[in-house]
């Protein structure tokens, strides 16, 4: 099985050049390079766009400030300098890890964002987990025999759900579960509690108890991902079921359940994994809406709040934070492909 056609002039010898040693790190380095470029572009774009939106000095000084007070504030914050110089100063500070101070409260802007991040990660994580747990079996069931009447009915319902805007769903949830049934709170956030299960006198196991306040925001946010994910899993499963290897498995006597779970679904999930990555940005958009409706103190809520008050440093920090998050999730999805798809795993040899 030797093939001289594979011999290239600059073929690497194992254990030879620097590039061979760097080999496994190259994808990671490439991703990091891309992240830096992305963050640079997001920051630059946002800096100039926000300056178009309003004058930060006016925000700082308040409505009844005199021209002299405005001048003083401009001088204090460096706002009297040309825009490009301001930009260079800002970038210089960023490189030193200084993200500026919140104009509203004077706290460090990034610190403010980071304290609110866990609340968003909580509902985003719950929403994603819920979507994945529901979408995979549901999509597989739908895609296995898509022509059946019952599947068509369910597909139709999901299609309609996909068309309902997220805020409408959230309001309907509030109406049903908070107002009518009074099962769940309609707003606010608690971190849940930890109960201790005493096994003996001296030994007790901590059990985290989720708070009821998580349910509605997480469910509303899941609505942004669940229908599209289900539809993709269903479509991919249906497609996989038409592949030649399904015919081979059938000819080998495989029962229907094996065809679906062992042969079709793993192939179908490859496409679905890609969707989760790209939809995460969409989920962040959903978080803005959901957190505003449920008064959930996460970064989505903070984004609305700080944009309304033109709290530029906070908005900038938020943008950096969200861009990094979206990027990381996408990079992780890329990475997960290597586990899901053996064709990508063994590229090297």
């Amino acid at each position, binding site marked *: 099985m030797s093939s001289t056609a594979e011999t290239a002039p600059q073929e690497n010898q194992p254990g030879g050049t620097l590039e061979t040693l760097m080999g496994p790190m190259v994808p990671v380095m490439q991703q990091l390079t891309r992240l830096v470029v992305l963050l640079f572009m997001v920051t630059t774009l946002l800096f100039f766009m926000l300056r178009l939106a309003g004058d930060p000095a006016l925000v700082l000084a308040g409505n009844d400030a005199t021209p002299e007070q405005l001048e003083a504030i401009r001088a204090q914050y460096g706002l009297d300098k040309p825009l490009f110089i301001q930009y260079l100063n800002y970038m210089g500070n960023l490189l030193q890890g200084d993200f500026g101070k919140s104009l509203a409260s004077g706290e460090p802007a990034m610190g403010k964002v980071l304290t609110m991040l866990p609340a968003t990660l909580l509902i985003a994580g719950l929403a994603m987990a819920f979507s994945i747990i529901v979408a995979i079996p549901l999509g597989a069931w739908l895609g296995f025999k898509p022509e059946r009447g019952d599947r068509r009915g369910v597909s139709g319902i999901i299609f309609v759900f996909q068309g309902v805007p997220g805020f409408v769903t959230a309001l309907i949830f509030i109406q049903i579960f908070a107002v009518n049934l009074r099962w769940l709170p309609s707003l606010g956030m608690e971190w849940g509690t930890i109960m201790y299960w005493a096994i003996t006198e001296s030994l007790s196991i901590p059990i985290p108890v989720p708070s009821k306040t998580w349910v509605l925001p997480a469910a509303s946010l899941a609505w942004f991902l669940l229908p599209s994910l289900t539809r993709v899993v269903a479509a991919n499963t249906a497609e996989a079921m038409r592949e*030649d290897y399904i015919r081979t498995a059938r*000819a080998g006597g495989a029962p229907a359940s094996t065809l679906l779970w062992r042969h079709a679904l793993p192939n179908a999930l490859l496409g679905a994994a890609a969707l989760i990555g790209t939809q995460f940005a969409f989920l962040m958009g959903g978080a803005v809406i959901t957190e505003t409706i449920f008064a959930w103190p996460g970064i989505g809520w903070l984004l609305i709040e700080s944009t309304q008050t033109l709290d530029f440093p906070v908005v900038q920090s938020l943008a950096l934070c969200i861009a990094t998050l979206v990027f990381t999730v996408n990079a992780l999805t890329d990475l997960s492909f290597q586990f899901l798809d053996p064709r990508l795993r063994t590229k090297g040899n």
Partner: protein
Amino acid sequence: MVKPVVRVDDLRLEFLGQTGAFEALKGISLEIGEGEIVGVVGESGSGKSVTAMNLLQLLPRTKINVPTGTISVLDHDVRAMNEKQLQHIRGGEVSMIFQEPMTALNPVLRVKDQIDDVILRHKDVTPQEAEEMSLKLLADTKITDPRRVYESFPHELSGGMRQRAMIAMAFSCSPKLIVADEPTTALDVTVQAQILSLLKERAQKTGTSVLLITHDLAVVAQICDRVYVMYKGEFVEEGTTKDVIGNPQHVYTRALLNSLPEGKQPKSRLATVAAAMLEGGADNVIDEPIEQVTRVARTGDTILQIQGAVVRYPKEYNLFGRPITFHTAVDNVTLEIEEGETLALVGESGCGKTSLANAVVGLNKLADGAILFRGKNVLDHDPETRREIQIVFQDPQSSLDPRWPVWKIMTEPLTVGQSPSKAELRVKAASLCEMVGLEPSQIDRLPHEFSGGQRQRIAVGRALSVRPKLLVLDEPTSALDVSVQAQILNLLLDLQDQYGLTYLFISHDVAVVRHIADKVAVMYQSKVVEAGESEQVLTAPNHDYTRTLMNAVPSLKRAFAA
């Protein structure tokens, strides 16, 4: 008479569609004896795959209607069995081998899992025992390192290895019958030869009956005891392979044999099935050589010079996206083509012949060397030179824009740098249609309304629209049925004759090359290993690889000599 393993009686089968039923099988009867290798030969759409799939009831039962017929497989009335009972037989007593081993094996499961699954399903063994059995089966298919193949994913194996794994899987539960549906069609000839003899050897050793479905009479001749010839849902002829091929009775069988280039006078017109069926006799078809006009048209002037051409593709990239390692697809190839002649480039998949063809038409850059058309470098993108060289691709299914009408497809090259009126283009398209043997009235139709052969005529017409001197034909008949291949070969010879065209003909089919080419260049692992007059290269090859290739080609003549 040995007891038949399969007995099919007067089977009719219709596919139920939205527009009505389509009758795929029109009352076929088939018998396969114990240990017998039986071929079903026919062209695409003849119903041969339907026959195979239906033995194991693999067609969706809700989408077909079977008005009459019985199918008995190993004394089971399979039509009366439910899915659960069928699952017991499938892969156990009866197994199948499919055409394309790349798509027929699950890409995300190791060979190990795919074979073990079948064994564990049908036999009462532990996973360890199943593993031992699988390794033994793989070793039986003459794989030298069964352990590696066993642990591999399908994409890590070559086409031949995958098909061996498939054969191992098919033999895993000692079946009484194996149904092989075009098992070697997707493989290179040298691999095909190995797989066919392997299949035959394994079947004989285990006493398994084989039903072999193929479009290739030469494959049938090589391994089948008996053969059924299928045409439009019917068996038109059956008998021992020797009788059917040596002394065909039915018009269709004769036409099919006559449409094969093997054994025919080079550059003669080949018989075509349509003509034979129309005239009611294969004896009527024209079989005289064209006068050697094309020979005379060889002016001796060099039209194309390929000088030390090297084509490389990037393989791995560094941090900045710059390629650091390369795959050399064409390695220092030097060739010359004279005006009016046909140079055939022969070789197996991956040998670099298509990369070279693309370089000739300027679609690939050269890493080194030069390609000169009448002394001008083709990569200079001089419009005049570019017009003189045109290309026809392998698969007319994908090389024509499905949403463009024929007139627009055919005249597209004329709109490069010019803007003729629509009326002019339509007139031009109509005359091109006539040139390539299509109805000029069909110029408003879309590609899907044509058959494969007609689509390839459209592609030839498109290439001819700018009156080129050199036509690069990249496997122009490989995606076509043999009888359609004959039509296209006839057309190409006629066109060369009429317009003094020069052909660079890429093919893996030695019989076709022998028929059409003046000169042959054999490519192997990116290099040209042998080149010369076709007569000389193909009858007295010098290079080892050429000899291997020649011996591997399935041949009717050789099958009977043996």
